[in-house]
């Protein structure tokens, strides 16, 4: 599998490590509820199809990336820097 890092270009997936679904949003702050945190930590849609997911280019530029990939075919349609994605999301919105 080849992932096109927005900074480093196309690299083998062995250079990256995987975290998982990018959709869950951490409930921040002292007022956050345990049930919301449980859902964030544990529950996943796990779709067969397009999946937005977090990868870390650990053997390259150490950027966290949001990769949009089809879990049935492994086809990648987008790779974006996670920090940019995170900065552009509005409060309460999933990534």
């Amino acid at each position: 599998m080849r992932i096109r890092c927005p900074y480093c270009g196309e690299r083998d997936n062995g250079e990256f490590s995987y975290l998982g679904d990018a959709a869950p949003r951490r409930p921040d702050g002292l007022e956050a509820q345990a049930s919301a945190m449980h859902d964030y930590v544990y529950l996943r849609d796990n779709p067969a199809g397009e999946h937005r997911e977090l990868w870390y280019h650990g053997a390259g530029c150490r950027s966290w990336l949001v990769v949009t990939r089809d879990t049935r075919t492994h086809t990648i349609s987008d790779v974006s820097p996670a920090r940019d994605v995170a900065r552009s999301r509005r409060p309460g919105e999933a990534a």
Partner: protein
Amino acid sequence: MHYSVFSVLGQALRGQRGWKPQWRDAAPRTEYDVVIVGGGGHGLATAYYLAKEHGLTNIAVLERSHIGSGNVGRNTTIVRSNYGLPGNIPFYEQSMKLWEGLEQDINYNAMVSQRGVLNLYHSDAQRDAYARRGNAMRMAGIDAELLDREGVRAMVPFIDFENARFPVKGGLLQRRGGTVRHDAVAWGYARAADQRGVDIVQNCAVTGIRRENGRVTGVETSRGLIRARKVALSVAGSTSLLAAMVDMRLPIESHVLQAFVSEGVKPLIDCVMTFGAGHFYVSQSDKGGLVFGGDIDGYNSYAQRGNLATIEDVMEGGMALWPGLGRLRLLRHWGGVMDMSMDGSPIIDRTGIDGLYLNAGWCYGGFKATPAAGFCFAHLIARDAPHPDAAAYRLDRFATGHLIDEKGMGAQPNLH
């Protein structure tokens, strides 16, 4: 037809013409007491034990393809009960005991081969972790031996003791562990369940789950609506997709695990061996191929195939452990899709919907669990109460914190 040396000889004289289909390729009826979704090892075993232990025979097993086409036919055939946590230990030992009597029970030779499972350790800390595990096994009455370096050398003299990057210091051995001919498990359970009246329906994909008033009433399938009082999901790898039909999100991700087999050669290794310093485990099939594997690829996938990074990683582990493997050739590699759960342990539980039962989250340990998973799932379905040996596999444990995390990796499925 009863299988025995006599029936085999008798048929040999008749040109093998008297054999009957090992199970009926049933057409679905419109209604059943229990519909089991998934004709893999677990689903077929569940049907068998529902019939045998609970007297339920108005059962259908629905399989979208042909039976045994999922992970029961894609794994590396290892069986063992060398777990370390109390939530797992009794369950896997029950499974091991069922394996030990399986062939006589279902009259099918699944080649249960208790050749021993040897986990190597390479440091004092790993030794102590294995001691912790082995002691827990012994406390539960399970066989476990902690071998030193010489003990390991006596079993597998051909591995690298001289020039290893991570020297082998010993191993944890479970002699009762071993291998089982994987396909035969599916076929044997199918035949035994069929003989007890279970309908095995192939090429029947479930497309929806019917609910009325919070209760399951049946399933929609590619072969029409099938009503059922109880619906049991046993579709590891695809669990989330079925759960999504009833708007259920689960602590599960689907990941691909690759497996490998070499060309067949004369006997080389008599046990199952696991490398503690790399991702590699190996045994040899009765046909002569080395069957081996390593880590999951590490990303969500439903594609049943993996990539080169993992393949190289597995082979490096193999060569590091056993440098004589160099000229042996890889014959075939393939992938299976795992339900990777958030703590690395399975779920056998009711759901929030009456009449809907869940058997899922097996990670890469589902094959060895087949008999006990079927046995305990059948118990849950028939009695609406968990079997004591599987009582820890609750769906709400992630909320209560009663996690069963053997590796201590936390809520990251690809690290389990």
